[in-house]
């Protein structure tokens, strides 16, 4: 049974090899993926190194702070940097549009600052050539160029009639041609991507094999969808010309029209609060950590607790208690406002994923970024981790201050021993299993696309017109 498929495969490959234009297109595709991978890995290496060094410098800066009050140190704060994950070399996702660092200081949760794209010019934003973007956009194009002729070309030349007359099963033809297209495609893509991934993994040992395997799987589904669609169209088309016209139109719609349109529609359907209004709303609810009312209340409670009537008689420092209470009373405010903003983004992302019903590119974008850990959902995890760390810092410092009564602000100064008690900031990618449901729509829709494409292809192959 495999023999007819094999024969078709050999014939197709031979035909493709004789077509100089196809060879050129294949070589161009290989070159693009290779260059994008090389540049991606190089950029990734530099940025990883910079961030690691900067994080180390910040840590040693913190450990070597001069003698300072604990609250003074809290105001000096720490900058933390978002680490790069190895798979970001393949798909940096929205990383360039997110800030690189956040300042963890007393009293407030700051926003991330310095988005690389804000510094870059318009040219860099025009089309960012990453391995993922190239495969998402040019992979389908290569498939179309390899496959649009598969059935329609034979029909134009009259060879399809001959094949059918000797009783060849259309499904064998289909599988043979699909194997040929897929084989050539893999020859173009796999070496370049493998190089990139190997280099990426070489950078860091903590690559998640689950993520990598799933990433390979979703790309196979995506490209498989296009192989199926191309063969279905070419099997039904009246001529090679109309097959090509239809497939190219679909390619433009898939790669250019739908993603932008769906993003606009998601933005229109679920508006995010403007930065100014959001900030003002949060500031209106934040209560001042140094407010006179809070000070009086804390003192009153302490007097009652220790049975004294003046601050000098207290065995603890009321300032530490006040500051910590000031921090804690604002936690729910930060959580609510950041939560509201993040929730809006998440809902937009869900709308976007459903947009995958219009074009498979939308689903692969969501899944690829998600698996590479370079989408907003993962960024959110980092924001949360950084804020948790900020709260640990404040608690450690304020508790230390509480233990040391002082007459005036800043009388007590702490030293390296206290700074070292603040743990070093650690961040690891969240477990994929916790985030899996977020990507369910995209994953299901991509599966459906692939199934639909192959059902169509098989049906067209079994009912071939000569």
């Amino acid at each position, binding site marked *: 049974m495999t023999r007819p498929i094999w024969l078709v495969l050999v014939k197709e490959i031979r035909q493709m090899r004789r077509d100089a234009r196809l060879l050129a297109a294949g070589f161009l595709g290989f070159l693009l993926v290779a260059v994008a991978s090389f540049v991606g890995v190089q950029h990734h290496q530099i940025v990883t190194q910079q961030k690691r060094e900067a994080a180390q410098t910040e840590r040693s800066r913190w450990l070597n702070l001069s003698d300072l009050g604990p609250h003074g140190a809290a105001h000096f704060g720490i900058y933390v940097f978002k680490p790069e994950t190895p798979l970001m070399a393949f798909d940096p996702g929205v990383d360039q549009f997110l800030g690189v660092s956040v300042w963890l200081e007393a009293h407030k949760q700051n926003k991330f600052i310095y988005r690389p794209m804000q510094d870059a*010019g*318009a040219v860099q934003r*025009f089309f960012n050539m990453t391995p993922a973007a190239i495969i998402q956009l040019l992979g389908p194009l290569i498939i179309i160029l390899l496959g649009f002729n598969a059935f329609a070309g034979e029909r134009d030349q009259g060879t399809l009639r001959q094949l059918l007359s000797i009783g060849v099963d259309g499904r064998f033809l289909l599988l043979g041609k699909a194997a040929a297209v897929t084989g050539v495609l893999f020859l173009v893509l796999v070496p370049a991507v493998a190089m990139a991934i190997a280099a990426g993994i070489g950078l860091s040992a903590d690559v998640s094999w689950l993520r990598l395997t799933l990433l390979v799987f979703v790309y196979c589904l995506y490209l498989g969808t296009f192989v199926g669609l191309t063969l279905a169209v070419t099997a039904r088309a009246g001529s090679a010309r109309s097959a090509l016209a239809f497939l190219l139109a679909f390619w433009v719609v898939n790669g250019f029209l739908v993603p932008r349109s769906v*993003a606009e529609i*998601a933005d229109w359907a679920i508006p995010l609060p*403007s930065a100014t209004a959001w900030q003002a709303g949060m500031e209106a609810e934040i209560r001042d950590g140094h407010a006179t009312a809070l000070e009086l209340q804390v003192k009153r409670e302490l007097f009652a607790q220790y049975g004294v009537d003046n601050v000098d008689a207290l065995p603890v420092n009321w300032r530490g208690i006040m500051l910590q209470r000031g921090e804690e009373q604002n936690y729910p405010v930060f959580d609510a406002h950041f939560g509201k903003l993040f929730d809006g983004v998440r809902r937009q992302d869900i709308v976007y994923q459903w947009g995958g019903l219009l074009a498979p590119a939308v689903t692969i974008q969501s899944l690829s970024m998600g698996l590479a850990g370079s*989408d907003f959902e993962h960024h959110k995890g980092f924001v949360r981790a950084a804020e948790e760390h900020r709260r640990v810092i404040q608690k450690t410092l304020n508790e230390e201050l509480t233990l040391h009564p002082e007459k005036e602000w800043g009388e007590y100064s702490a030293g390296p021993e206290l700074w070292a008690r603040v743990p070093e900031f650690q961040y690891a990618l969240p477990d994929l299993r916790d985030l899996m449901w977020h990507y369910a729509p995209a994953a299901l829709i991509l599966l459906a696309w692939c199934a639909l494409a192959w059902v169509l292809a098989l049906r067209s192959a079994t009912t071939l017109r000569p």
Partner: protein
Amino acid sequence: MPRMIFKYEMRQLIADRMFPTITLMVIIVFGFGLWNGQRWVDYQYQVIASAEQEQASALARAKAQAERVRAGMEEVSDWQNPATTYGFMEYHLVSFAIKLPAPLAPLAVGQSDLYPFVLKINTEPQSKLVSAHENVNVRKLLLGPFDLAFVSIYLLPLLIFALCYDVVAGEKEQGILVLLAAQPVSLPQLLYLKIGFRLILIIGILTLLLILISGLISDRLFEPQAAVQLLVWLGVVVAYSLFWFLLCVFIISWGWKSATNALALAGCWLLVVVLVPAGVSTWITAAYPLPSRVEFIKTMRDNQENAWKDPSQFIEKFLIDHPQLRPQVKDNGSWASWSIMNREINRQIQVVETEFAMQLQRQQHFVEWLKFLSPALLVHSAFLDLTGTGIASQREFLSQVDLYHAELEDYFITKLIRKEIDFTGYDEFPRFHYKNISSEKLQASFVTCAALAGQAFVLAVLGLPRLRRYPIVEE
């Protein structure tokens, strides 16, 4: 002869089933693009209105509280007291720097979704402002907007291809070309007339669009240069269309089948719109990397740490620069010293920021030249200039913000040093007024038009000799 060809072309087009489909597509994508651009501008105005309201109500609140405090009806800690200069400056001052959208802003979102257009200014370090931004979904930023610029740059060429790929080649395939060649018209003449007809059609569509846009921005059309800018915008789009039309002529001149023409044109489109820009962007990233913000943060922190170790050095530095204020500072309270220290630390950070900005500008200056490699990049950059949505316009805005920040600081610190503790200047402290001077940069757009026309001309010249040898029958 031209009139006859135009007449039959028109009849043929109307009879063609593709034509209504294409027309409908054009209306939808242009309409959608314009709607998205307008939506973004509306959003900006909405944010601006709410910022202005916030500013007004904060001021009103501060005034009311100050009156209550002065009347002894309310007690408030010194540093929150709106009746004092220090309290007002530190706690109540709300002043927004606002960048109004340019008249043509609905035509391109450009980079404006990446940059802040409303900044809350107070006497705190303004280094934070550099990274301020609007809340736009980052995925949308990554994909880019579906605006009229996108439609013109990416989709307009495809529309032109749909109209032109089978000109002459289609006639040859149907066997009509031999008949046409028997008429008193040369092949190049026939081809240019047919292409010319389609060019007029596209210009007609664009002119209708222009009228629609004029209606949309009618209230701002009479601002200085707005109308001129709109015409220049049309000029750029027409020049870009001309480039693609003549590319069609060039491809057709090879005498291929219409399907091959379509494939070749699609390849050119991919090259001009995707691959060359991608190559340029990759090359820039690799060869001229942006100065690193991570490094920048390190330098900034070094300065900050230095300042925290010995704050008094800054007061001394300030007094060396302003010797006349020394006696006043000496016997003034800690507020003035604190403000001076903050100001000097800010200035230190500002020095690092300025150095960074210079590095950036050098990089971008070089990048500017690379846009001549692709008509798509050229047109994109002209759109950003015309609609005031590029980095140049943003840089101008930020430099105005810098000046304003310094002015505001001077106003308050001088008062503090002069011991003007009671504050009454609620209506007289400096306000920000945006001066839009991007409209003075029309010449760049003219260069773009000229460059595009030049590229189109080269294509026309290259195609012409081959047209004379065009095989009118299949060999």
